[in-house]
């Protein structure tokens, strides 16, 4: 029913029209093929698109894929579309993101406990920026909201899945004071992601 070329073309059309990250199993379901076939199609598209000169790159974000512009061309794109430069995230925002990213899904109360300060405003603005999202509620008195990171978060931090986060500083951090070898350990770990 689908030649391979058509399958790739349809996946390309869906990802392109979607704008947002589109789940690969969604594409598989619509095209009536296995997820594996979509993964292969996406890999072929990535070969085609992800060259240093290409204007468009195809990113894998978790179980989804999304087209975006080649970062090398951000300046002309911003200029042509009158896009504002993103203001860098504040220290508070980075800390909240880090706590959520490594512990998700988490409540705001958890984040506040780690940071020792109220985080409502920061969490709200990260949700608004599309970096955090609500993930249901915790079945505890008060049914607090749970938060997790978004696919947009993955894109902004150049991760293809949340597993690709740099190893949490937790383990090595605790050893820090004890054996003083954490730097070496960290670097070997980081080199895997560099």
């Amino acid at each position, binding site marked *: 029913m689908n030649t391979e070329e058509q399958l790739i073309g349809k996946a390309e059309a869906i990802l392109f029209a979607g704008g947002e990250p589109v789940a690969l199993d969604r594409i598989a379901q619509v095209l009536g093929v296995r997820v594996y076939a979509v993964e292969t199609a996406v890999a072929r598209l990535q070969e085609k698109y992800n060259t240093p000169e290409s204007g468009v790159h195809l990113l894998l974000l978790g179980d989804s894929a999304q087209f975006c512009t080649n970062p090398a061309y951000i300046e002309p794109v911003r200029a042509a579309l009158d896009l504002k430069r993103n203001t860098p995230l504040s220290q508070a925002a980075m800390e909240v993101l880090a706590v959520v990213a490594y512990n998700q899904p988490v409540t705001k109360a958890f984040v506040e406990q780690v940071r020792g300060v109220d985080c409502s405003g920061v969490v709200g603005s990260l949700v608004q920026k599309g970096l955090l999202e609500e993930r249901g509620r915790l079945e505890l008195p008060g049914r607090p909201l749970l938060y997790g990171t978004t696919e947009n978060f993955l894109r*902004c931090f150049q991760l293809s899945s949340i597993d690709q*986060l740099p190893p949490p*500083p937790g383990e090595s951090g605790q050893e820090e004071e004890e054996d003083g070898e954490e730097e070496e350990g960290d670097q070997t770990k980081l080199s895997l992601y560099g």
Partner: protein
Amino acid sequence: MDKLQYKLEVFEGPLDMLLALVAKNKIDIYDIPIAELLEQYMEQIQLMREADLDIASEFLEMAARLVYIKTLSLLPRQEEDEDPRLELTGLLLEYQQCKQAAEALRERAAFDTVTRPAEELPADYIYKRIHDPRELGQALRAAWGKGKSLLPPKPESFSALVSARIVSVASQTVYVLRRLWKQGTMAYQALFREKTDRSARIAVFLAVLELVKSRRIRVEGEGGGCRVRLLPRDKTREEDAPKSIQAEDGI
């Protein structure tokens, strides 16, 4: 004077401030000299006060907490009692990791890709589900039941304000008699079903009153269930009937 020259840092919170003090004084986080840390912490709070900074309540809570830990550590302790400083150590370690993770994340941050808005494709609205045709009958019955509830005023009902349409009582007397002529009796409310504007409804109501008064009709029953019955001709008395009815009778 020394204190005033000390450049006041901006801290993310009390934990951030404590970590800075720990680092500055090379304090062993696993064996916190609580009295010394408390003193330095209070010094910082004092500096913030002098600089007229808003001191968030979290800073004061932490001060209270440090005082509490200090008090506990002065009391004699049993072997099995937990070191009161342990929780503080835990908090500081956790926050330290948080800061490190935030730093590692920042290095990865790249806000230099632009995505595309979703393409605006016309949706396909055509309904394709299959239903049992009998659902229509059930829905029809449900719909008829609902007509009894009050409609919001229709735009036409306001037209009376602009151009009052006068419905004469006489014409509605004829209408009521005609309806009853065929059936002899009918539900009172049914008389009003076709009359949508207020003027016609009032005219029908007045016509019913007149016909009752002239004993051409009788209203039986109560409330929503009441019915109107046409009375036999011989029971009426010509002299009581209003002129309009007489005119009708003459036909």
